[in-house]
Protein backbone atom coordinates (compact mmCIF):
# COMPACT_ATOMS: atom_id res chain seq x y z
CA UNK A 1 0.00 0.00 0.00
CA UNK A 2 1.39 3.45 -0.81
CA UNK A 3 2.75 5.37 2.15
CA UNK A 4 0.39 8.29 1.66
CA UNK A 5 -2.67 6.06 1.89
CA UNK A 6 -1.54 4.50 5.15
CA UNK A 7 -0.69 7.88 6.62
CA UNK A 8 -4.16 9.14 5.76
CA UNK A 9 -5.69 6.15 7.53
CA UNK A 10 -3.55 6.74 10.62
CA UNK A 11 -5.67 8.74 13.02
CA UNK A 12 -3.92 10.53 15.84
CA UNK A 13 -6.12 11.15 18.82
CA UNK A 14 -5.20 13.01 21.99
CA UNK A 15 -5.13 9.78 23.96
CA UNK A 16 -3.60 6.45 22.97
CA UNK A 17 -3.34 3.13 24.76
CA UNK A 18 0.35 2.33 25.31
CA UNK A 19 0.79 -1.42 24.94
CA UNK A 20 3.69 -2.12 27.31
CA UNK A 21 6.14 -4.73 26.00
CA UNK A 22 7.51 -7.32 28.48
CA UNK A 23 11.12 -6.57 27.53
CA UNK A 24 10.28 -2.89 27.87
CA UNK A 25 9.11 -3.38 31.44
CA UNK A 26 11.52 -5.95 32.75
CA UNK A 27 14.75 -5.28 30.86
CA UNK A 28 14.62 -1.76 29.40
CA UNK A 29 12.11 0.24 31.49
CA UNK A 30 13.24 3.44 29.73
CA UNK A 31 11.12 2.63 26.68
CA UNK A 32 7.86 3.10 28.53
CA UNK A 33 8.81 6.22 30.52
CA UNK A 34 10.46 8.01 27.61
CA UNK A 35 7.52 7.42 25.27
CA UNK A 36 5.03 8.65 27.87
CA UNK A 37 7.16 11.75 28.52
CA UNK A 38 7.84 12.79 24.94
CA UNK A 39 4.29 12.16 23.71
CA UNK A 40 3.10 14.40 26.56
CA UNK A 41 5.30 17.16 25.15
CA UNK A 42 3.53 16.70 21.80
CA UNK A 43 0.12 16.93 23.44
CA UNK A 44 -0.67 13.22 23.24
CA UNK A 45 -1.49 11.36 26.42
CA UNK A 46 -0.42 7.71 26.61
CA UNK A 47 -2.58 5.59 28.88
CA UNK A 48 -1.42 2.28 30.37
CA UNK A 49 -3.41 -0.39 32.16
CA UNK A 50 -2.47 -2.91 34.84
CA UNK A 51 -4.91 -5.31 33.19
CA UNK A 52 -2.68 -5.58 30.15
CA UNK A 53 -0.37 -8.60 30.13
CA UNK A 54 2.20 -9.96 27.68
CA UNK A 55 0.60 -10.00 24.22
CA UNK A 56 0.59 -13.80 24.41
CA UNK A 57 0.71 -14.29 20.68
CA UNK A 58 4.32 -15.40 20.71
CA UNK A 59 3.30 -18.65 22.44
CA UNK A 60 1.74 -19.72 19.16
CA UNK A 61 4.79 -18.95 17.07
CA UNK A 62 7.09 -20.72 19.50
CA UNK A 63 4.67 -23.66 19.48
CA UNK A 64 4.27 -23.91 23.25
CA UNK A 65 0.55 -23.23 23.05
CA UNK A 66 -2.21 -23.92 20.59
CA UNK A 67 -3.62 -21.06 18.50
CA UNK A 68 -6.90 -21.93 20.19
CA UNK A 69 -5.44 -20.75 23.50
CA UNK A 70 -3.52 -17.70 22.38
CA UNK A 71 -6.33 -16.26 20.26
CA UNK A 72 -8.55 -15.46 23.31
CA UNK A 73 -5.47 -14.30 25.27
CA UNK A 74 -4.62 -11.77 22.56
CA UNK A 75 -8.28 -10.73 22.19
CA UNK A 76 -8.41 -10.12 25.96
CA UNK A 77 -5.55 -7.63 25.76
CA UNK A 78 -7.17 -5.76 22.87
CA UNK A 79 -10.45 -5.77 24.79
CA UNK A 80 -8.73 -3.94 27.67
CA UNK A 81 -7.93 -1.07 25.30
CA UNK A 82 -11.35 -1.22 23.69
CA UNK A 83 -13.02 -0.75 27.08
CA UNK A 84 -11.26 2.62 27.25
CA UNK A 85 -12.14 3.44 23.61
CA UNK A 86 -8.48 3.97 22.77
CA UNK A 87 -6.38 3.02 19.75
CA UNK A 88 -3.35 0.90 20.58
CA UNK A 89 0.26 2.06 20.21
CA UNK A 90 2.81 -0.77 20.29
CA UNK A 91 6.51 -0.30 20.97
CA UNK A 92 7.51 -3.84 20.02
CA UNK A 93 7.47 -5.40 16.57
CA UNK A 94 6.34 -8.66 18.16
CA UNK A 95 3.37 -7.19 20.03
CA UNK A 96 2.41 -5.34 16.84
CA UNK A 97 2.59 -8.51 14.76
CA UNK A 98 0.56 -10.68 17.06
CA UNK A 99 -2.12 -8.12 17.91
CA UNK A 100 -2.57 -7.19 14.24
CA UNK A 101 -2.46 -10.72 12.82
CA UNK A 102 -4.84 -12.18 15.38
CA UNK A 103 -7.28 -9.28 15.21
CA UNK A 104 -7.40 -9.54 11.40
CA UNK A 105 -7.97 -13.28 11.68
CA UNK A 106 -10.89 -12.77 14.05
CA UNK A 107 -12.37 -9.81 12.17
CA UNK A 108 -12.34 -11.75 8.90
CA UNK A 109 -13.95 -14.83 10.45
CA UNK A 110 -17.05 -13.90 12.46
CA UNK A 111 -17.62 -17.48 13.74
CA UNK A 112 -14.12 -17.54 15.26
CA UNK A 113 -14.73 -14.14 16.80
CA UNK A 114 -18.01 -15.39 18.27
CA UNK A 115 -16.34 -18.33 19.96
CA UNK A 116 -13.48 -16.19 21.29
CA UNK A 117 -16.12 -13.87 22.70
CA UNK A 118 -17.86 -16.80 24.36
CA UNK A 119 -14.69 -17.45 26.34
CA UNK A 120 -14.12 -13.77 27.03
CA UNK A 121 -17.71 -13.41 28.25
CA UNK A 122 -16.83 -15.86 31.05
CA UNK A 123 -14.28 -13.33 32.33
CA UNK A 124 -16.54 -10.37 31.68
CA UNK A 125 -14.87 -8.97 28.58
CA UNK A 126 -15.69 -8.63 24.90
CA UNK A 127 -13.57 -8.30 21.78
CA UNK A 128 -15.19 -5.96 19.28
CA UNK A 129 -12.43 -5.22 16.81
CA UNK A 130 -13.35 -1.55 16.92
CA UNK A 131 -9.93 -0.01 17.66
CA UNK A 132 -6.88 0.43 15.45
CA UNK A 133 -3.49 -1.07 16.28
CA UNK A 134 -0.47 1.05 15.37
CA UNK A 135 3.24 0.43 15.29
CA UNK A 136 5.21 3.22 17.00
CA UNK A 137 6.85 4.08 13.65
CA UNK A 138 3.46 4.83 12.07
CA UNK A 139 2.45 7.26 14.79
CA UNK A 140 5.89 8.86 15.09
CA UNK A 141 6.24 9.32 11.34
CA UNK A 142 2.81 10.96 11.23
CA UNK A 143 3.78 13.47 13.96
CA UNK A 144 7.29 13.96 12.56
CA UNK A 145 6.76 17.67 11.95
CA UNK A 146 5.45 18.21 15.47
CA UNK A 147 8.58 16.46 16.78
CA UNK A 148 10.78 18.69 14.61
CA UNK A 149 9.17 21.82 16.04
CA UNK A 150 9.63 20.61 19.61
CA UNK A 151 13.31 19.59 19.41
CA UNK A 152 15.20 21.42 22.16
CA UNK A 153 18.44 19.48 22.04
CA UNK A 154 19.09 18.76 18.33
CA UNK A 155 21.10 15.68 17.41
CA UNK A 156 23.34 17.68 15.06
CA UNK A 157 26.82 16.23 14.81
CA UNK A 158 25.80 12.73 15.96
CA UNK A 159 25.87 9.73 13.62
CA UNK A 160 23.27 6.97 13.90
CA UNK A 161 23.07 3.51 12.36
CA UNK A 162 19.49 2.34 11.85
CA UNK A 163 17.97 -1.08 12.33
CA UNK A 164 14.29 -1.67 11.51
CA UNK A 165 13.65 -5.13 12.86
CA UNK A 166 12.19 -7.82 10.67
CA UNK A 167 8.67 -8.30 11.90
CA UNK A 168 7.36 -4.90 10.97
CA UNK A 169 8.59 -4.46 7.39
CA UNK A 170 9.15 -8.04 6.25
CA UNK A 171 6.13 -9.55 7.89
CA UNK A 172 3.79 -6.78 6.78
CA UNK A 173 5.24 -6.18 3.33
CA UNK A 174 1.84 -5.27 1.95
CA UNK A 175 0.52 -3.06 4.73
CA UNK A 176 3.63 -1.57 6.37
CA UNK A 177 4.39 2.11 6.08
CA UNK A 178 7.53 1.53 4.03
CA UNK A 179 9.16 -0.80 1.54
CA UNK A 180 10.59 -4.00 3.01
CA UNK A 181 13.88 -3.75 1.13
CA UNK A 182 14.76 -0.05 1.02
CA UNK A 183 12.99 1.69 3.88
CA UNK A 184 13.70 5.33 4.74
CA UNK A 185 11.17 6.33 7.42
CA UNK A 186 13.47 5.80 10.40
CA UNK A 187 16.23 7.80 8.69
CA UNK A 188 13.78 10.60 7.90
CA UNK A 189 12.71 10.81 11.54
CA UNK A 190 16.33 10.95 12.76
CA UNK A 191 17.24 13.57 10.18
CA UNK A 192 14.23 15.65 11.22
CA UNK A 193 15.83 15.89 14.67
CA UNK A 194 19.16 16.92 13.14
CA UNK A 195 20.98 13.58 13.34
CA UNK A 196 23.19 12.12 10.64
CA UNK A 197 22.86 8.61 9.22
CA UNK A 198 25.74 6.13 9.24
CA UNK A 199 24.96 3.86 6.32
CA UNK A 200 26.03 0.24 6.39
CA UNK A 201 25.37 -2.71 4.10
CA UNK A 202 23.80 -5.10 6.63
CA UNK A 203 21.09 -2.61 7.59
CA UNK A 204 18.23 -4.91 6.61
CA UNK A 205 19.76 -8.02 8.17
CA UNK A 206 17.91 -9.64 11.07
CA UNK A 207 19.35 -8.83 14.52
CA UNK A 208 19.59 -12.57 15.13
CA UNK A 209 17.36 -12.99 18.14
CA UNK A 210 14.37 -15.01 16.95
CA UNK A 211 13.10 -16.25 20.28
CA UNK A 212 13.38 -19.83 19.09
CA UNK A 213 16.98 -19.20 18.02
CA UNK A 214 18.43 -17.98 21.29
CA UNK A 215 16.55 -20.54 23.36
CA UNK A 216 16.38 -23.68 21.25
CA UNK A 217 19.72 -23.45 19.48
CA UNK A 218 21.62 -21.87 22.38
CA UNK A 219 23.12 -19.01 20.36
CA UNK A 220 24.76 -21.49 18.01
CA UNK A 221 23.53 -19.56 14.98
CA UNK A 222 22.50 -16.37 16.69
CA UNK A 223 25.95 -15.35 17.94
CA UNK A 224 27.89 -15.63 14.64
CA UNK A 225 24.98 -13.98 12.81
CA UNK A 226 24.87 -10.97 15.13
CA UNK A 227 28.68 -10.75 15.04
CA UNK A 228 28.55 -10.43 11.26
CA UNK A 229 26.00 -7.65 11.51
CA UNK A 230 27.96 -5.84 14.22
CA UNK A 231 31.25 -6.07 12.33
CA UNK A 232 29.58 -4.39 9.38
CA UNK A 233 27.90 -1.81 11.60
CA UNK A 234 31.21 -0.92 13.28
CA UNK A 235 32.72 0.02 9.91
CA UNK A 236 30.20 2.85 9.63
CA UNK A 237 31.44 4.20 12.99
CA UNK A 238 28.09 5.35 14.36
CA UNK A 239 27.70 7.07 17.75
CA UNK A 240 24.72 4.80 18.43
CA UNK A 241 22.48 2.26 16.75
CA UNK A 242 18.77 3.08 16.63
CA UNK A 243 16.17 0.30 16.75
CA UNK A 244 12.38 0.19 16.89
CA UNK A 245 11.89 -3.15 18.65
CA UNK A 246 12.87 -4.04 22.25
CA UNK A 247 13.93 -7.53 21.19
CA UNK A 248 16.36 -6.14 18.61
CA UNK A 249 17.55 -3.75 21.32
CA UNK A 250 18.17 -6.60 23.74
CA UNK A 251 19.92 -8.72 21.12
CA UNK A 252 22.25 -6.07 19.66
CA UNK A 253 23.00 -4.59 23.09
CA UNK A 254 23.59 -7.81 25.02
CA UNK A 255 25.34 -9.78 22.28
CA UNK A 256 28.09 -7.14 22.22
CA UNK A 257 28.80 -7.83 25.88
CA UNK A 258 28.79 -11.57 25.20
CA UNK A 259 31.16 -11.21 22.24
CA UNK A 260 33.49 -8.99 24.29
CA UNK A 261 33.41 -11.52 27.14
CA UNK A 262 34.33 -14.36 24.79
CA UNK A 263 37.19 -12.31 23.35
CA UNK A 264 35.64 -12.18 19.89
CA UNK A 265 36.50 -8.51 19.46
CA UNK A 266 35.81 -5.08 20.86
CA UNK A 267 32.17 -4.06 20.50
CA UNK A 268 30.92 -0.92 22.18
CA UNK A 269 28.21 0.67 20.08
CA UNK A 270 25.41 1.84 22.39
CA UNK A 271 21.95 0.77 21.22
CA UNK A 272 18.96 3.05 21.70
CA UNK A 273 15.26 2.66 20.97
CA UNK A 274 13.75 5.35 18.75
CA UNK A 275 11.43 6.55 21.53
CA UNK A 276 14.41 7.09 23.86
CA UNK A 277 16.24 9.03 21.14
CA UNK A 278 13.24 11.30 20.52
CA UNK A 279 12.84 11.84 24.26
CA UNK A 280 16.53 12.83 24.41
CA UNK A 281 16.13 15.34 21.57
CA UNK A 282 12.94 16.74 23.06
CA UNK A 283 14.70 17.48 26.31
CA UNK A 284 13.14 14.84 28.56
CA UNK A 285 15.04 14.38 31.85
CA UNK A 286 17.91 11.96 31.21
CA UNK A 287 16.98 9.82 34.24
CA UNK A 288 13.64 9.03 32.55
CA UNK A 289 15.40 7.62 29.48
CA UNK A 290 16.56 4.60 31.46
CA UNK A 291 19.88 4.36 29.62
CA UNK A 292 21.37 2.82 32.80
CA UNK A 293 19.65 -0.47 32.06
CA UNK A 294 21.63 -0.99 28.84
CA UNK A 295 24.59 -3.35 28.85
CA UNK A 296 26.71 -1.12 26.61
CA UNK A 297 27.52 2.16 28.36
CA UNK A 298 26.17 5.47 27.06
CA UNK A 299 28.83 7.49 28.90
CA UNK A 300 30.85 8.34 25.78
CA UNK A 301 27.69 9.01 23.74
CA UNK A 302 26.23 11.38 26.35
CA UNK A 303 29.58 13.13 26.83
CA UNK A 304 29.81 13.88 23.10
CA UNK A 305 26.14 14.84 22.99
CA UNK A 306 26.33 17.32 25.87
CA UNK A 307 29.60 18.85 24.65
CA UNK A 308 27.94 19.44 21.26
CA UNK A 309 24.95 20.98 23.04
CA UNK A 310 27.07 23.43 25.05
CA UNK A 311 29.02 24.32 21.90
CA UNK A 312 25.73 25.16 20.17
CA UNK A 313 24.64 27.26 23.13
CA UNK A 314 27.88 29.25 22.94
CA UNK A 315 27.38 29.80 19.21
CA UNK A 316 23.81 30.94 19.63
CA UNK A 317 24.07 32.91 22.66
Amino acid at each position, binding site marked *: MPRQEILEKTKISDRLFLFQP*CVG*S*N*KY*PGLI*TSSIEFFRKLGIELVTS*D*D*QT*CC*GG*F*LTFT*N*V*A*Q*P*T*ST*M*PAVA*RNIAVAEEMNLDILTLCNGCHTFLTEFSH*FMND*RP*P*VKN*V*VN*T*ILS*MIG*REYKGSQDIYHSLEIIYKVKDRIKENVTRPLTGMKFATHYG*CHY*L*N*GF*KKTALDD*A*HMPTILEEIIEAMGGEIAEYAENRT*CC*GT*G*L*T*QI*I*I*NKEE*LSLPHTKMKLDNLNHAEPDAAVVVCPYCLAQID*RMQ*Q*KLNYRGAGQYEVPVIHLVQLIALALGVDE*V*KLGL*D*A*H*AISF*ARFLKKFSSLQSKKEVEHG
Partner: protein
Amino acid sequence: MRETNKEWLPGFDKKFAALTHQMVKDLEKCLQCGKCTGQCPAAKLSSYNPREIIRDIRMGNVEKVISSHELWLCFFCSGCYAVCPRDINFPFAVSMLRYAALAQGYGWEEVKKIKDPYAQDYYETGLSVNINERNLGIKREIAKNSKTDGSIETVRKKMGLPAKRRVSERAVSEIKFIADATGMTDLFKEINKKKGKPKKWNYGSPADLVKIKRGANQKFIDVEEEDKEKVS
Protein backbone atom coordinates in the same frame (compact mmCIF):
# COMPACT_ATOMS: atom_id res chain seq x y z
CA MET B 1 14.74 -40.97 3.34
CA ARG B 2 13.80 -42.06 -0.16
CA GLU B 3 12.23 -39.39 -2.31
CA THR B 4 8.85 -40.33 -3.61
CA ASN B 5 6.76 -38.73 -6.22
CA LYS B 6 3.48 -38.61 -4.38
CA GLU B 7 1.88 -35.20 -4.44
CA TRP B 8 1.40 -34.85 -0.71
CA LEU B 9 1.61 -37.28 2.17
CA PRO B 10 -1.70 -39.10 2.01
CA GLY B 11 -4.14 -37.36 4.23
CA PHE B 12 -1.68 -34.68 5.34
CA ASP B 13 -3.84 -31.76 4.37
CA LYS B 14 -6.92 -33.55 5.70
CA LYS B 15 -5.29 -34.45 8.98
CA PHE B 16 -4.17 -30.90 9.62
CA ALA B 17 -6.80 -29.26 7.46
CA ALA B 18 -7.79 -26.73 10.03
CA LEU B 19 -4.25 -25.45 10.35
CA THR B 20 -2.73 -26.09 7.00
CA HIS B 21 -5.21 -24.97 4.39
CA GLN B 22 -3.33 -21.70 3.91
CA MET B 23 0.01 -23.48 3.93
CA VAL B 24 -1.00 -26.01 1.29
CA LYS B 25 -2.38 -23.21 -0.85
CA ASP B 26 0.88 -21.29 -0.39
CA LEU B 27 3.37 -24.06 -1.01
CA GLU B 28 1.57 -25.13 -4.18
CA LYS B 29 2.53 -21.75 -5.65
CA CYS B 30 6.30 -22.19 -5.17
CA LEU B 31 8.48 -21.65 -8.25
CA GLN B 32 11.60 -23.14 -6.62
CA CYS B 33 13.50 -19.95 -7.47
CA GLY B 34 15.49 -20.11 -4.23
CA LYS B 35 15.37 -16.41 -3.37
CA CYS B 36 14.20 -17.40 0.12
CA THR B 37 17.30 -19.51 0.72
CA GLY B 38 19.59 -16.91 -0.82
CA GLN B 39 18.74 -14.28 1.79
CA CYS B 40 18.13 -16.64 4.73
CA PRO B 41 20.30 -16.00 7.84
CA ALA B 42 19.87 -19.59 9.02
CA ALA B 43 20.76 -21.02 5.59
CA LYS B 44 23.96 -18.99 5.65
CA LEU B 45 25.10 -20.70 8.85
CA SER B 46 23.61 -24.20 8.67
CA SER B 47 22.08 -26.87 6.47
CA TYR B 48 18.65 -25.23 6.75
CA ASN B 49 17.15 -24.71 3.31
CA PRO B 50 13.63 -23.27 2.86
CA ARG B 51 13.47 -24.11 -0.84
CA GLU B 52 14.39 -27.71 -0.14
CA ILE B 53 11.79 -27.96 2.62
CA ILE B 54 9.06 -26.79 0.24
CA ARG B 55 10.28 -29.23 -2.39
CA ASP B 56 10.31 -32.09 0.10
CA ILE B 57 6.82 -31.31 1.30
CA ARG B 58 5.51 -31.20 -2.25
CA MET B 59 7.24 -34.46 -3.12
CA GLY B 60 5.51 -36.11 -0.19
CA ASN B 61 8.51 -36.35 2.14
CA VAL B 62 6.63 -34.76 4.99
CA GLU B 63 7.99 -37.22 7.55
CA LYS B 64 11.56 -36.32 6.57
CA VAL B 65 10.85 -32.64 7.15
CA ILE B 66 8.96 -32.87 10.40
CA SER B 67 11.47 -35.26 11.95
CA SER B 68 14.45 -33.10 10.96
CA HIS B 69 16.53 -30.85 13.21
CA GLU B 70 16.57 -28.23 10.42
CA LEU B 71 12.90 -27.46 10.99
CA TRP B 72 13.88 -25.85 14.32
CA LEU B 73 16.57 -23.56 12.88
CA CYS B 74 14.32 -20.81 11.44
CA PHE B 75 14.97 -17.25 12.77
CA PHE B 76 11.40 -16.15 11.96
CA CYS B 77 12.76 -12.98 10.34
CA SER B 78 10.23 -13.25 7.48
CA GLY B 79 12.92 -12.26 5.01
CA CYS B 80 11.82 -15.15 2.77
CA TYR B 81 8.27 -13.81 2.74
CA ALA B 82 9.56 -10.33 1.88
CA VAL B 83 11.54 -11.53 -1.16
CA CYS B 84 9.15 -14.23 -2.38
CA PRO B 85 7.81 -13.47 -5.87
CA ARG B 86 4.80 -15.68 -5.12
CA ASP B 87 4.07 -14.17 -1.68
CA ILE B 88 4.48 -17.47 0.13
CA ASN B 89 4.39 -16.89 3.87
CA PHE B 90 7.08 -19.45 4.63
CA PRO B 91 7.58 -18.63 8.35
CA PHE B 92 3.88 -19.41 8.77
CA ALA B 93 4.44 -22.75 7.04
CA VAL B 94 7.39 -23.47 9.36
CA SER B 95 5.24 -22.76 12.37
CA MET B 96 2.51 -25.06 11.07
CA LEU B 97 5.03 -27.79 10.22
CA ARG B 98 6.36 -27.56 13.78
CA TYR B 99 2.84 -28.17 15.05
CA ALA B 100 2.61 -31.10 12.68
CA ALA B 101 5.95 -32.38 14.05
CA LEU B 102 4.71 -32.13 17.64
CA ALA B 103 1.52 -33.91 16.70
CA GLN B 104 3.64 -36.78 15.37
CA GLY B 105 5.80 -36.88 18.50
CA TYR B 106 8.87 -34.97 17.23
CA GLY B 107 10.47 -31.83 18.65
CA TRP B 108 9.02 -31.94 22.17
CA GLU B 109 12.44 -31.41 23.75
CA GLU B 110 12.81 -28.25 21.64
CA VAL B 111 9.59 -26.61 22.81
CA LYS B 112 10.41 -27.56 26.40
CA LYS B 113 13.35 -25.15 26.25
CA ILE B 114 10.97 -22.29 25.47
CA LYS B 115 8.21 -23.40 27.78
CA ASP B 116 10.32 -23.31 30.92
CA PRO B 117 11.62 -19.77 30.99
CA TYR B 118 8.93 -17.96 29.01
CA ALA B 119 5.58 -19.69 28.95
CA GLN B 120 5.69 -20.61 32.65
CA ASP B 121 6.41 -16.97 33.58
CA TYR B 122 3.56 -15.91 31.31
CA TYR B 123 1.17 -18.30 33.05
CA GLU B 124 2.21 -17.27 36.55
CA THR B 125 2.81 -13.51 36.22
CA GLY B 126 1.19 -12.47 32.95
CA LEU B 127 4.58 -11.35 31.60
CA SER B 128 6.80 -13.64 29.60
CA VAL B 129 10.13 -11.93 30.25
CA ASN B 130 11.34 -12.28 33.82
CA ILE B 131 12.75 -9.25 35.65
CA ASN B 132 15.63 -11.30 37.07
CA GLU B 133 18.72 -11.15 34.91
CA ARG B 134 20.02 -14.65 34.27
CA ASN B 135 23.25 -13.54 32.67
CA LEU B 136 25.62 -12.36 35.41
CA GLY B 137 27.97 -10.68 32.92
CA ILE B 138 25.13 -8.41 31.76
CA LYS B 139 24.18 -7.70 35.37
CA ARG B 140 27.76 -6.64 36.09
CA GLU B 141 27.72 -4.26 33.11
CA ILE B 142 24.42 -2.73 34.20
CA ALA B 143 25.80 -2.34 37.74
CA LYS B 144 28.84 -0.55 36.35
CA ASN B 145 26.79 1.74 34.08
CA SER B 146 24.11 2.61 36.62
CA LYS B 147 26.33 2.56 39.73
CA THR B 148 23.79 0.31 41.50
CA ASP B 149 23.59 -3.42 42.26
CA GLY B 150 22.68 -4.03 38.63
CA SER B 151 19.16 -5.35 39.17
CA ILE B 152 16.39 -3.89 37.03
CA GLU B 153 14.30 -3.32 40.17
CA THR B 154 16.89 -0.80 41.43
CA VAL B 155 17.18 0.84 38.02
CA ARG B 156 13.38 1.18 37.88
CA LYS B 157 13.28 2.71 41.37
CA LYS B 158 16.03 5.15 40.38
CA MET B 159 13.81 6.22 37.46
CA GLY B 160 10.90 6.85 39.80
CA LEU B 161 9.01 3.71 38.82
CA PRO B 162 7.68 0.96 41.09
CA ALA B 163 10.25 -1.85 41.48
CA LYS B 164 8.12 -4.19 39.40
CA ARG B 165 5.62 -3.50 36.67
CA ARG B 166 2.15 -3.92 38.14
CA VAL B 167 -0.04 -6.57 36.57
CA SER B 168 -3.44 -6.73 38.24
CA GLU B 169 -4.56 -9.89 40.01
CA ARG B 170 -7.60 -9.90 37.77
CA ALA B 171 -5.40 -9.99 34.66
CA VAL B 172 -3.32 -12.92 35.96
CA SER B 173 -6.40 -14.89 36.97
CA GLU B 174 -7.95 -14.23 33.57
CA ILE B 175 -4.85 -15.54 31.82
CA LYS B 176 -4.95 -18.64 34.02
CA PHE B 177 -8.63 -19.13 33.24
CA ILE B 178 -8.06 -18.87 29.48
CA ALA B 179 -5.07 -21.23 29.72
CA ASP B 180 -7.03 -23.80 31.72
CA ALA B 181 -10.20 -23.58 29.66
CA THR B 182 -8.54 -23.84 26.27
CA GLY B 183 -6.03 -26.61 26.99
CA MET B 184 -2.87 -24.53 27.29
CA THR B 185 -2.23 -25.81 30.82
CA ASP B 186 -2.70 -29.43 29.72
CA LEU B 187 -0.21 -28.90 26.92
CA PHE B 188 2.32 -27.42 29.38
CA LYS B 189 1.97 -30.56 31.52
CA GLU B 190 2.52 -32.71 28.46
CA ILE B 191 5.63 -30.71 27.51
CA ASN B 192 6.99 -31.22 31.04
CA LYS B 193 6.95 -35.01 30.66
CA LYS B 194 10.53 -35.92 29.94
CA LYS B 195 10.28 -39.53 28.89
CA GLY B 196 8.00 -41.41 26.59
CA LYS B 197 6.19 -40.29 23.52
CA PRO B 198 3.60 -37.70 24.43
CA LYS B 199 0.00 -38.47 23.70
CA LYS B 200 -1.29 -37.37 20.33
CA TRP B 201 -2.33 -33.77 20.26
CA ASN B 202 -4.90 -32.30 18.05
CA TYR B 203 -3.39 -28.93 17.15
CA GLY B 204 -6.63 -27.68 15.79
CA SER B 205 -7.35 -24.31 14.35
CA PRO B 206 -9.26 -21.70 16.31
CA ALA B 207 -12.21 -23.67 15.02
CA ASP B 208 -11.45 -26.18 17.77
CA LEU B 209 -12.57 -23.63 20.29
CA VAL B 210 -16.06 -24.86 19.58
CA LYS B 211 -15.36 -27.80 21.84
CA ILE B 212 -15.96 -25.33 24.60
CA LYS B 213 -19.11 -23.98 23.04
CA ARG B 214 -21.19 -26.98 22.13
CA GLY B 215 -23.72 -26.55 19.41
CA ALA B 216 -21.72 -24.15 17.32
CA ASN B 217 -19.78 -26.97 15.68
CA GLN B 218 -21.86 -27.01 12.55
CA LYS B 219 -21.03 -23.40 11.75
CA PHE B 220 -17.34 -24.12 12.00
CA ILE B 221 -17.42 -27.19 9.86
CA ASP B 222 -19.07 -25.05 7.21
CA VAL B 223 -16.26 -22.54 7.37
CA GLU B 224 -13.63 -25.25 6.98
CA GLU B 225 -15.49 -26.81 4.05
CA GLU B 226 -15.51 -23.46 2.31
CA ASP B 227 -11.79 -23.09 2.83
CA LYS B 228 -11.13 -26.53 1.42
CA GLU B 229 -13.10 -25.71 -1.67
CA LYS B 230 -10.97 -22.65 -2.22
CA VAL B 231 -7.87 -24.84 -2.08
CA SER B 232 -9.07 -27.27 -4.69
